[in-house]
Structure formats: C-alpha cells, structure tokens
C-alpha cells in the first residue's frame, strides 16, 4: 500500500501506528513482547513508570468514545506523560474549522503524540501526513478502516491464552463490512501466521471480494464455528436494521447469536472475545458472555498494556527515552 513506510522511520521503527497493513510480523511481535512487560494480572495495579515524563499526548477524538479514550489516557498517565483530551465533535469543526486548521492549532500546543479517532476512513493517515516532523499519530479508529490497537490487544489476549499463533483457526462473527476492528484483526492474524481466519455473517454484512482479505467466508454460524480455537464476536449497531441490511435483532440472534450450544462446535478449549460493548441477546447470550470461555474482561485490561507498549515504542523511537 502507498504510504506503507509512513508508519516507520528510516531505521524501520514505529513512527506512527495507523494500521496493521504495512507492518511485518516482527513489528507486531515486538508490540506484544513490550506489552507483556507492562501487563500484570487482572485486578492488580500496573506500576507507573517514568518512560514518557515530559511528553504530551493529545487525545483527539472526533467521534465519541469514553472507553477507548479512557484506556489511552490511563496508558499515557502510567507512562508519566501529560494528557490533553480534545473532544472535537463539540468544538471546532462544528464552527466550520477544517481538520487541518484544528491540527495546526493543536500543534501550537506542542503535542508529541496525537491519538486520533475519526468517523472517516483514512483520517489518521491524513493527519499523519500533515503533522509536523517530530509529531506522531496513533489511530484509535478511523471509519470502517482500522483500529490497530484494538486488534493488538486482541492478539495479546489470544497469545496469552493460546501461546502460538501458527496452529490457530479463528472465526470473526458478525458485521464485518462496517467493522474497523475486524479489518485490523484479519490483517494482524494473517501477519502473525494463523492457520485460518474465517469470517461469518449474512451476505449483507460481508464486504465485496472479502476473500481478497485472506479469509474463508461462511454464512452459516454452526459450520463456521467447527473446530475453531478462537471466536471473536463483533458488535452489531442498531442502525443496521434501518439500512435494509438485516430484518431484526431477533432474527440476527437466531442465526448469528452465540450460545453455549453453538459454542460446542468449537474446540473444547476455545476462547470467546468481543471488543465491547456487548449487546446481550443480540450478538451473544449472557451465558456465553459471562461463561468460563469468555475472556472479554481480560481484553479490556490488556488494552492498557498494549497501548502503553505502542506509545512507548513510538515516543522511544525518537531520540531516546525521556
């Protein structure tokens, strides 16, 4: 892809983190390894480290998100960075300011790193192309395109539970078409060398030429779950019912909702993941969400370690640690 090395500096180190595409297996494994050093058991307090003391991280969110923004903020603070939260949907762009104007204004505040979420695919790439030379960008979700830190925390969760990626069969279930999470997960899983990635959903939620992503496409949940090691359920937005993509949440659950019974098709030690927040009774039954194979809450706590890893790599990659 053009703009591949936009993410890497001359030494091949991470300069921005915009998408999984364009990064090699060694980059992804390094993120996971560094995240490992920050991760602690769930329920324990992560120790604050002074790696990014004196650095300024700006959360630049053009779309509302309490959850992702909070974990980025927490990750930055645990690295001793100063954090500015800039919620643009309620400020500048509503007054006619262009994205570039907003960016120039924020740059004047000497931010080292922008964490960007935007409704338009390609927004993080656009910002990365226009920031001042010393400034980095982390994509916290752009349109339907990419959400690479979410994908990496999912990879981290999988590695913690399964160890090696090579033998794994992974099924991603639901609204693939509108999911930046799914796109990043598919690319990360293939880069890390799993045996098979399956996507499962009705034809209306599977993107055009989906197989070009390196996946097997299933429309039948039972068939798709056969012998998988990891089941990733995606969130279903309510508005999909209005766009003539689905008849009803009820039918969706009937066909694609995960229940304990359906999960029997997967390997006995299969894990169940979900990027949250869950629609109980739509994507999955509560018995699964709260069941022994669910690792959904671990995903959330690992999110902090993975975001700490990415931030420290990006800001450490330039001119040593503060």
């Amino acid at each position: 892809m053009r703009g591949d090395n936009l993410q890497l500096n001359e030494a091949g180190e991470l300069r921005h983190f915009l998408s999984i595409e364009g990064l090699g297996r060694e980059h992804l494994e390094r993120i996971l390894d560094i995240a490992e050093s920050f991760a602690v058991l769930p329920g324990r307090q992560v120790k604050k480290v002074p790696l990014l003391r004196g650095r300024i991280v700006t959360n630049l969110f053009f779309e509302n998100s309490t959850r992702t923004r909070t974990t980025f903020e927490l990750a930055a603070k645990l690295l001793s960075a100063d954090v500015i939260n800039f919620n643009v949907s309620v400020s500048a762009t509503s007054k006619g300011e262009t994205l570039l104007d907003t960016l120039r204004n924020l740059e004047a505040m000497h931010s080292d790193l922008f964490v960007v979420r935007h409704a338009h695919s390609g927004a993080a790439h656009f910002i990365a192309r226009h920031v001042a030379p010393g400034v980095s960008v982390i994509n916290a979700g752009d349109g339907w395109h990419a959400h690479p830190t979410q994908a990496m925390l999912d990879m981290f969760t999988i590695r913690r539970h399964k160890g090696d990626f090579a033998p794994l069969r992974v099924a991603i279930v639901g609204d693939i078409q509108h999911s930046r999470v799914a796109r990043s997960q598919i690319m990360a899983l293939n880069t890390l060398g799993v045996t098979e990635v399956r996507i499962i959903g009705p034809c209306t939620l599977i993107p055009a030429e989906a197989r070009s992503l390196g996946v097997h496409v299933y429309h039948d949940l039972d068939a798709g779950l056969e012998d998988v090691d990891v089941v990733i359920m995606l969130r279903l937005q309510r508005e999909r019912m209005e766009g003539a993509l689905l008849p009803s949440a009820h039918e969706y659950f009937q066909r694609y909702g995960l229940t304990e019974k359906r999960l029997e098709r997967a390997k006995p030690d299969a894990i169940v993941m979900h990027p949250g927040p869950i629609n109980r009774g739509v994507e999955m039954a509560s018995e699964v969400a709260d069941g022994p194979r669910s690792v959904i809450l671990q995903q959330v706590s690992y999110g902090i370690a993975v975001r700490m890893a990415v931030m420290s790599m990006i800001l450490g990659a330039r001119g040593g640690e503060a």
Partner: protein
Amino acid sequence: MKELPRIHVRGGRLIDPANGIDDPLDLWLADGKVAAVGSAPDGFRADQVIDAGGQVVCPGLIDLGAYLREPGFEHKATIESETRAAARGGITTLVCMPQTEPVIDTPAVWELIRRRAKACGRARVLAVGALTQGLAGEQLAEMGALAASGCVAVSNGRNPLASTLVARRAMEYATTFRLPVLLCSEDPHLKASGVVHEGAVATRLGLPGIPAAAETVAVARDLALTEHTGCRSHFHTLSTGRAAEMIAQARAGNRRLSADVAIHQLFLMETDVDGFRAECRVDPPLRTHADRERLRQAVAEGEIKVICSDHQPHEADAKAQPFPATAPGISGLETLLPLTLKLVEEKVLALPQAIACLTAAPARVLGLDLGHLAPGASADLCIFDPDAVWRFHASEMASAGRNTPFDGWEFRGRVTHTLFEGRITFKLERP
C-alpha cells in the same frame, strides 16, 4: 476590434478526421476561418507564417463536458482561468456543464457565461442546460428557452432525478426541441454514500463502495427510456465495462445512440486510490482493470466515440481532507490530449482515430459545425509536436485547479500552438 492576421500554417501533417484527411498539407487562414487547404488561395498574402514542420495540425479539440465553476464557485476556478488552461491543452471548444450557482436553467445564466467567455476570447464556451429546475430532479427546466438561447444539450449532471417518470418526461420534452440529453446514469440509492469502486480496495481500506450496478442499473433504465421516447441520448462518463457492452448492444438498433468516457478512466484503476489518494477520487469511481480494458476496447471499436476530460477543477482545500470528505474530480483540460496520445503510443488507437475522439465525434454528438477544417470552417486549430517528450507538472498548470493524479507523468506529444477563430491563443515557449 483589431483585424485578424492572415496566417499560413506551413509544412505540417494535417489530420482532419471529419474530412478523411491525413496528409502533409498547408493551411491558410483568414477572417477567423479556414481560407484554403492544400493550395494557397489566389493572392493570399500571409501576415504570419507558422512553421509546422514535423508537427501535427488538427482541428481544435472539443471537450464534451467540463465544469468551469463560474458563476458561483469562483474560489475553484473561473472562465478566464479555465479557458487559459483549455488553450494550453489544444482545446478550442468547451462544453460547460450546468452545475454552476445559479444553475444554467435559464437563458440569463447562460448569457452571463457566454459574455464572460467572449470577453476572455481564448476558447468557445458552449453550454449544457439543466434538465430540471435547479437540477433538483423534480420540475422540468424551460428547455424551449434554453434551446432557443443556444444551449447545445441538456443534462441533470450527476444530480439524481426524483423518479423514473420525471426521467421519461424530461427525455420526451427535450426531444421536442431536438436537444441531445447528456446522461450521467447512476442509481443514487445504490451509490448511497459510496466514495470508491465497491471492490477489493474499498474492502481493504474500509471505504464505502459504489457498486458497478449503480451504473448498469441506471444505464439499463435510460436505454429503455431512450427506446421509448426516441430521445437523442448521449451517455456521459461511463466507468464500467458492462455499461459499455450494453450500449454497444443497443447501438445495433439505434445508431444515434452515443457515449463518452473520461480520459482518466482509460488509465487509472481502483488500485490507484490505495493509500487514500484523494487526487484519484472521481465520480464515477475508478474501477477494475477489466473495466478499464473493456472501456479501451469500446473506444478502439468505435462503440464509445468520444473521449472527454470531465474537467473538475478544485481549490487545494477540497482535496485536503480525510478521503471520504474530499471532493471528487480531476482538473483534466491540460492532460486530455497528452493522455489520448498515450493511447496511440500504447497502440489502442491510431492517431487519426484518437483525434476524431476529441474533434469530429463530439461535434457530431452535439450536431455542431465544428471539429473539422474544410474551407469556411472556423479556424480552430491544435498544432502539436508528436515526438516531443516532456514531463507534466501540476505546479505549471494554467487551470486554477491543480488537482491531478498525473503530476510527474511523462508524455510524448505536446501542444505548440492553439488557434481559436484565427487567433493564436497559446504558443509554447521553448525553454
């Protein structure tokens, strides 16, 4: 007004496809018209001689469908800037689309454009009037008045019509005045919020797609309505191979049916958008390799007879946004001929055929006495050096819009002179 110089164009290879000419022939121009071809008129004393040795002399190009942005969008471009760009590109006739502000749905707006163009004097500007009032797709525009005031065709551009019934009535009504209808056939519901071709690249980049069916569904409908109404339909800026096939098939029963393709569709593909390249965002979108090859074939076989620029100049800000927020369009006047000559270089078209696509064919679609160089014709000329190898730079464009994906491309064949109504409107300064 200063008297026009009498010009002798000497030593060139004259290619005039409308008259079947491709020979080394001189031209003599007087009073803004072609005075003679091949042998000098009695007693002709030239005020000026243009040495066209080693060059091709052809009719000035006719660009069927350009957005000139004036009135209403002068921050993007003006008639003055775009006619200057046209002259640089060897274009002497610009067919202006009705998407101005106000829209060209009354003779008054057209009159304003006509006067501005006349004052600039670098190219002929003709207008496509609106098919519906305000291009809103509901109430018919006063096509009788538009025709009487000189609009050469009508179109609703890429603005959707409210219903198939409005489409039918508009085509019928246009037929009353023998107005050609330029159809940008596209189903707005299938297009929805799409910004690129619905295919592998859209899937990978997570960009909303425009399926090929958005075009083929609408072309099928418009072909059926053409048959029903007897409308003089011209399909403008096709993007899919399937639509080209459908039109070729329909042409077997209706030879008046015509179509064009924007030159960038014959070079670029969906993969060019990769990396979120906003300069490659166009409407209709760049499609697959197979589509591009099928469109090239349709041009080569004469099923698509016209190549246009689909010129859409933009200010820099319009493209400096995240991809889905950018404005579609390429500023194409200055690359229309160079790219078309590349088709000759790539052996898709013979040179006379390529020139016909830019001169005689668009004139014929609009029923204009232009695009040829018989004695008495308007002295609109494009003279180019077919062997000049040069590099195109966006920074050197005359158009106010520098939105081009062809920055840095190397071309063979460069315009050296453009003459409009017997006056030199562009002359290449040698470095």
